[in-house]
């Protein structure tokens, strides 16, 4: 077992690797951000000045160091006459949007957060319920419906499902707005109305994974000895469902954490379809306009969220299954059949 401290250390290493890789791509890419700023016509002297202004005249490792230092201390861009401030924590400055990257991220994050929280909650609840029901009626009509729908959901492209949802519920029935975002602080009701379709779209697509996982694991759990003991003791089938689901807490938590991480980092296609200006939309715009500081910043924050979600899931594991606890009492071994494996592997 690795300690919590080792895990945190590993997470930091992952983040640093991501940063170095993004910087590397930055340098390999045939794009010169200074060229855009320089204007037309651009003399070599002007280009050099623009590079100096943006801090691109340094070797890459110096830039990396400056970037890292700026997260703590902030930084200023510019020459002697024009100065641009980027306060700590500074993740770079978008010379196209004339804003620090952190400010851009701060504007967009609440939107991605709203999408992620609702979608994950919905997909987990629907997926787990559908999977459990299917497992209980294995081979029955309900099971076949759940299995069939989850195959479709798992293989359908998100833009098809999202556009269908817009066409049917927004344009056809006129029940919900087809896109846009209203901040929660402005009107909670409008906030939710605008998010229902993206939530449902994501939940439909991702919930299939939950349904399949829960279905197969439930079937496995219901065949185990502890379920037989519970039945023999006269416990109700509803109670037994809870016993089985309790044993699925571990894989489900991991899945939920991964999904939160992935959705918080931005859903490019879904945000596009529903006109939601979240992190995914920001990244997409930055890619089309070659706004490199924004790409680096968004990628880094996205990775940070995913790494944090993973770390959270890792740290929660021993709480959900005490057999994984560090420094817990070692497993006692007196039953014959499992003694060999337990003793030699632990």
């Amino acid at each position, binding site marked *: 077992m690795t300690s919590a401290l080792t895990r945190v250390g590993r997470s930091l290493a992952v983040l640093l690797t991501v940063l170095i890789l993004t910087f590397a791509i930055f340098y390999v890419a045939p794009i010169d951000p200074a060229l855009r700023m320089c204007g037309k016509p651009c003399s070599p002297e002007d280009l050099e000045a623009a590079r100096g202004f943006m801090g691109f005249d340094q070797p890459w490792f110096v830039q990396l160091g400056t970037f890292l230092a700026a997260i703590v201390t902030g930084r200023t861009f510019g020459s002697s006459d024009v100065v641009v401030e980027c306060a700590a924590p500074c993740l770079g400055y978008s010379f196209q949007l004339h804003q620090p990257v952190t400010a851009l991220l701060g504007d967009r994050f609440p939107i991605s957060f709203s999408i992620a929280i609702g979608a994950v909650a919905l997909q987990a609840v629907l997926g787990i319920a559908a999977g459990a029901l299917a497992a209980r009626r294995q081979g029955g009509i309900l099971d076949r419906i759940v299995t069939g729908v989850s195959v479709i959901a798992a293989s359908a492209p998100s833009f098809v499902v999202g556009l269908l949802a817009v066409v049917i519920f927004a344009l056809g029935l006129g029940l919900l707005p087809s896109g846009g975002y209203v901040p929660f602080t402005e009107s909670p009701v409008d906030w939710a109305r605008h998010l229902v379709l993206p939530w449902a779209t994501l939940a439909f697509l991702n919930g299939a994974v939950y349904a399949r996982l829960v279905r197969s694991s439930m079937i496995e759990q219901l065949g185990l000895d502890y379920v037989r003991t519970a039945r023999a003791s006269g416990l109700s089938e509803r109670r037994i469902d809870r016993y089985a689901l309790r044993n699925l807490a571990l894989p489900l938590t991991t899945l939920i954490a991964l999904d939160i991480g992935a959705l918080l980092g931005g859903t490019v296609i879904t945000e596009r379809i529903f006109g939601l200006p979240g992190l995914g939309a920001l990244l997409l715009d930055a890619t089309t306009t070659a706004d490199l500081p924004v790409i680096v910043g968004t990628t880094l924050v996205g990775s940070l969220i995913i790494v944090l979600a993973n770390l959270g899931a890792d740290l929660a594991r021993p709480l959900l299954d005490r057999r994984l606890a560090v420094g817990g009492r070692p497993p006692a071994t007196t039953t*014959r059949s499992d003694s060999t494996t337990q003793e030699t592997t632990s």
Partner: protein
Amino acid sequence: MSTDDELLALRDLRVTIADRTIVSGLDLSVRAGRVTALVGESGSGKSMTALSTIGLQPRGAQVYGSATLDGAELVGRSAQEMRRLRSGRIGMIFQEPAQSLSPVMKVSRVFRDVLGVREGLRGRAPVEVRTRELLTSVGLPDSARTAASFPHELSGGELQRVVIALALSGDPSLLIADEPTTALDVTVQRGILDLLTRIVEERELGVLLITHDMGVVGEIADDVVVLRDGEVVESGTAKQVLAAPEAPYTQALLSAVPRLSESLERTDGPRAEDPGGTESDSAPPVVRVEGLSVEYYRRGGSHRALDDVGMEIRRGEIHGLVGESGSGKSTWGKALAGLVPAHARTFELEGVDPRGLRAAERRAVFERVGLVFQDPASSLNPRRSVGWSIGEPLQLAGGLSRTEIARRTRDALELVRLPASFVSRLPHELSGGQRQRVSIARALVHEPALLIADEPTSALDVTIQARVIEVLREAIEQTRFACVFISHDLAVVGSLVDQVTVLRQGRAVEQGAAREVLGSPQHEYTRALLESVPDPERRLRGGDGGAAA
């Protein structure tokens, strides 16, 4: 058979799954204060009988005939009614205590749910009091610690007591115990059997005991029903059936049970005079280890699985390693095969110390070691033919033509008394005993100097177990390899080995000629082990003498 004090009565009980008859026409009674044993080998339908009685038969199973509990018919009741019956009148214990409880729930939590259903108890305080009371009554004095534990924090014996306590909640009149001690060490088994006997006496409840073990039957059963392929072969009181079995099958079952007393008489058999015999004394022993220790590192420290042990085995000799789980016997076998890192003062296989050799040479030394494991079902590749599996070690070694490999595969099959036609079969087409013989053939095909057999018969029925041991014995006599035979079963070890080491917590407590160690044990642990061995005849003799008498 009078029916006055009859608690559970099965009359012409039949179970079928998809037109296949599992149980055909079973008659059986359990009386209050008595233990009825339902005996049979795997596949005889004994567990299916128990599950069908309490409405837990698998989906698709049809139950016919009659099963009455205190006169009330059980067959044909709704699932809801059966659940109500189970929750009050019937308690059940299963084979694998380690898997009988949900691994992510504390014992106290399970008791809270079960007591709520079986005794209608609500609220923290009364549940806690009753939990402690039940746990204490099954011989778990530190009931507070037990209740606060997760299953993995308890030993197998403790867990089985917890399950028994659960089964006793609600004060049932019938207890069904399905192989309750099969997964436990002998000394632990002894404790559980004593507990069951005490429960029957104190609570006047009836027990339906399902077992394959005639020793367990002899220890606690009052009545016996012998089942074979779903049909009753013989039934009567335990005394009658054990002392004078009428059916040939019962006689075969009983005679297949290895008995220490008999096996010790045998030991002056062919190999006992070997050391002075034809083997050249100048040749180095196959195994010579001294001061062998193995340490496993786990979180926060290390665990010494083997502590300063040693052995010497010559060609044609069988050395038995006995001990309970966790004693280090499997570790010893693995250390000899080079599978775990070990420290030793002396470590020689056929006079060569593999330590310090280069990787290729070291591999050549350990290639002279063959291995056979406990579960034949999982040690053969299910998609490969028997011939392929047996020949694989030769193929890996390389340098042999295809015809040569085929010839040696046939020889190996012949050595374990299987027909050459078996080469094209797949593992699932074989019985458990045949599969284990294939595993032995596979281990012997490259003519090893040393065979390590780790519990090779523990997963097998007694009649099959006897045959596998016979095959192993013949193979050793024929090709004269050395053998390390690892087993928890003292009677099996006694019937086969020349030398024996008794292990306890990684230390050798006693070592020497099998007849001496098992016949007149010096160490109290060896004596305790020997006395715990269940014996079919114990009660026939009035329950006085130990197994080693």
